[in-house]
């Protein structure tokens, strides 16, 4: 297990380094933050002075090595915006909001998706199965921006059950969490259903039934346990996406998460913040993949054996 973790950490360092080069170069190819900051009536001299102040007058390789040198000391630079906040501080300020929203979404998705997927497999071809498949189809095909606006209209404007948007109370997180959860819920239903159908017809399940185990024990202790691996893999990667990639949902529901920070920093060409966001996202993905590997090893003795 230790070897597995060390290998993953070594791979993570290489990934982070490569990602830092890619992001650093790509961000600088898309525009100039100086153009964002120049005020009314600015002149060529103002532009030159600002370019120098931001260190953008140096060549790209020189800029990169300066960035890398600072990054190795834990300094990812400061935002170009007003108070020149440290870039990583801005990301860390937003991360708890994103984590909260993603966690609630995950609970909703797993809480509904798992039992529904199991029920659909157990009662294959019956009404609950049809309902689950329709929900899965809708969940993966309805655009989040549309769903979010419909939920606001129905549950906030018409029924008044929840607040429309913003951060500030349980009644504000329900709608964005449901909007975010629906896609992953649909995927969980499909994954669990197909895995369970395969598991329920397997030899080990037949053996469990032949041994006289109760049907709930057969379903949950034998079939389900073996069907959960694809969901763990999917949710591992998808949870990181939920945390960092919810730009549309954060925009519609005015949620102050990392997604909006990423979008705003891209639009402003705030290079330091873009780099900090991407490096944070990369780290999160790496951590989630590592967590998935560890959960696999915990759930499956064969993985533990292979890792020894």
């Amino acid at each position: 297990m230790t070897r597995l973790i060390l290998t993953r950490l070594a791979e993570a360092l290489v990934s982070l380094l490569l990602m830092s080069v890619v992001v650093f170069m790509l961000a600088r190819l898309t525009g100039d933050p100086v153009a964002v900051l120049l005020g009314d009536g600015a002149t060529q001299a103002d532009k030159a002075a600002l370019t120098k102040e931001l260190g953008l007058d140096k060549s790209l390789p020189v800029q990169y090595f300066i960035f890398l040198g600072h990054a190795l000391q834990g300094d990812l630079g400061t935002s170009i915006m007003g108070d020149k906040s440290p870039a990583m501080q801005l990301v860390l300020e937003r991360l708890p909001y994103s984590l909260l929203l993603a966690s609630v979404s995950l609970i909703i998705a797993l809480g509904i998706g798992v039992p529904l997927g199991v029920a659909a497999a157990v009662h294959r071809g019956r009404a609950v199965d049809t309902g689950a498949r329709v929900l899965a189809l809708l969940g993966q095909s309805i655009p989040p921006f549309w769903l979010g606006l419909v939920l606001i209209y129905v549950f906030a404007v018409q029924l008044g059950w929840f607040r429309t948007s913003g951060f500030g109370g349980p009644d504000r997180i329900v709608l964005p969490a449901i909007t975010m959860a629906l896609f992953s819920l649909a995927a969980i239903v499909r994954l669990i259903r197909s895995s369970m159908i395969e598991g329920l017809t397997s030899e080990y399940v037949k053996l469990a039934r032949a041994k006289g185990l109760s049907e709930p024990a057969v379903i949950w202790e034998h079939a389900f346990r073996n069907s959960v691996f694809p969901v763990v893999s999917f949710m591992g990667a998808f949870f990181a996406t939920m945390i960092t990639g919810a730009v549309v949902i954060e925009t519609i529901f005015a949620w102050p998460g990392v997604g909006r920070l990423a979008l705003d920093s891209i639009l402003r060409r705030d290079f330091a913040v873009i780099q900090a966001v991407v490096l944070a996202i990369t780290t999160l993905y790496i951590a989630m993949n590592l967590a998935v590997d560890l959960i696999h090893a915990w759930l499956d003795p064969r993985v533990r054996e292979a890792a020894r």
Partner: protein
Amino acid sequence: MRAALSALLALAALAVAACARPRADESTLIIALPTFSDSTFLPWTGGGQRKGFLDPIYDYLCIINPETGEPGPGLAESWTTSADGKVWTFSLRKGVQFQRGYGEVTSADVAYSIKQVMSPASRAGPASPLRRLIKSIETPDAYTVIINLNRPDPELAKGYLANAQQVGIVSAKYVGEVGERAANATPVGSGPYQLDFFRRDSEIRLKVREDKANIWREAPQFERLVFLAAPEVSTRVAMLKTGEADIAPMSYDDIDDVRQAGLQVRSIPQSWSPVVRMGGLVQEGARYEAKNPWADVRVRQAMNYAIDKDTIIRRIFHGEGRIAASDTPVEAWADLPPYPYDPAKARQLLTEAGYPDGFTLTLKTFTTNPGAELPTVAQAVALYWRAVGIKVSIELIDWTSLRTAWTSGAARTYVWTHRGFPFTSAQNGLEAGFEAKSLFASYNTPQLQVLIDAHSAELDPAKRRALLTDIGQYLRDQAGNVFIAHINEPYAVSSKVGDWTITSSNALNFEHIVRAPGQAAQ
């Protein structure tokens, strides 16, 4: 395990903090804005989009009268100008106190604030022109500020130092004591409100200053002003409908829906102006491109004649605007005749210019705020131009990419939609948009520069106005841009809001909003 526990505790703390958000009540006015631009609170650490929440905190030397457009006393009780227009002497109001016990507003604070806004590190919009304009600032006593200029500016009190610009007066002592970073997070001004709470890019809460007796302007009618960042316009309208907000800018398509919901619609008159800028028209070095078809004035005029502006105003902006003959609403240009919709004349001019079969051009467009409709305007313009033979390829890009090209001189061979903003001082607008020195100039010729310089140097009000009219006429006749309209910006407003006098899109006066008759007093 410890990290996991810490994360759980942080989430729990967030959940508890979440419950602490105050609900709307009669003493709170909630304003939903598309963006805060950036959540900084010193005047020089960001752009003018922050003025909605900065103006209740800070005072300005002069305050524009919304009715006349002329400057009146603010922190400055009176002012005089030297005969050559280069020396301005402001006499400050005595006894005005900064918030949080930071003492009386003095000339040292005024000098400090102006110097910070014009400093090279400033991120304020007028920093560059102020650096060129102001030579030195003297403070002979605590209540006198003398500003020496490099050139005459008869509109200094109306322009850069008035409340429609960005020179809010801060406490020099406070910033010196706590440092700029802390002062940026907890501002100290002399206005009626002070900062109570803020969450970056999400929420700003202001409350009436604790020492209410020191409010020298009219007493605010709302105990709290809450600003919420809500980027999506449909969400903002929903917030109004549910009572989660009292004021929010909205889209033109929502006007009927908002009225049917029993809400009010208030419009900022002539808040912005959709316009098409044409690259390569600044006749200065490499920024000029003589090969463009629109380098010929007849082509530019044809591009103006070809567009049915009235239909654009009615269909896209639901009638909220008027046809324009300029890129910003300037009082002296109000009577300039706009180009009428005349496709036949457009085709005739194109033929005379050597383009009987038209030509091809690229029209770049983007969305901004206000200005979400610019891509739709671009499509309409493209269709009208196609009707007279100009074949248009529309490219949707982001504003930063266009700014990068514009300010680097690379935007020479195409045209783009843009938005003009009103300036309380027309001279400030000319400096930004048409002076050859400005990187954001879209049109300039030696003749125009002569006119601008003459206007800038002229001190006699009547002659200044005549020169300004000449400039407007020249820009109109030369078709320096494709002028379309001066557009009103609609706001959805709840029944809580009574009188709301808006000076301009740069001075929304949220702090002076009057409670609607029949609404409970605080």
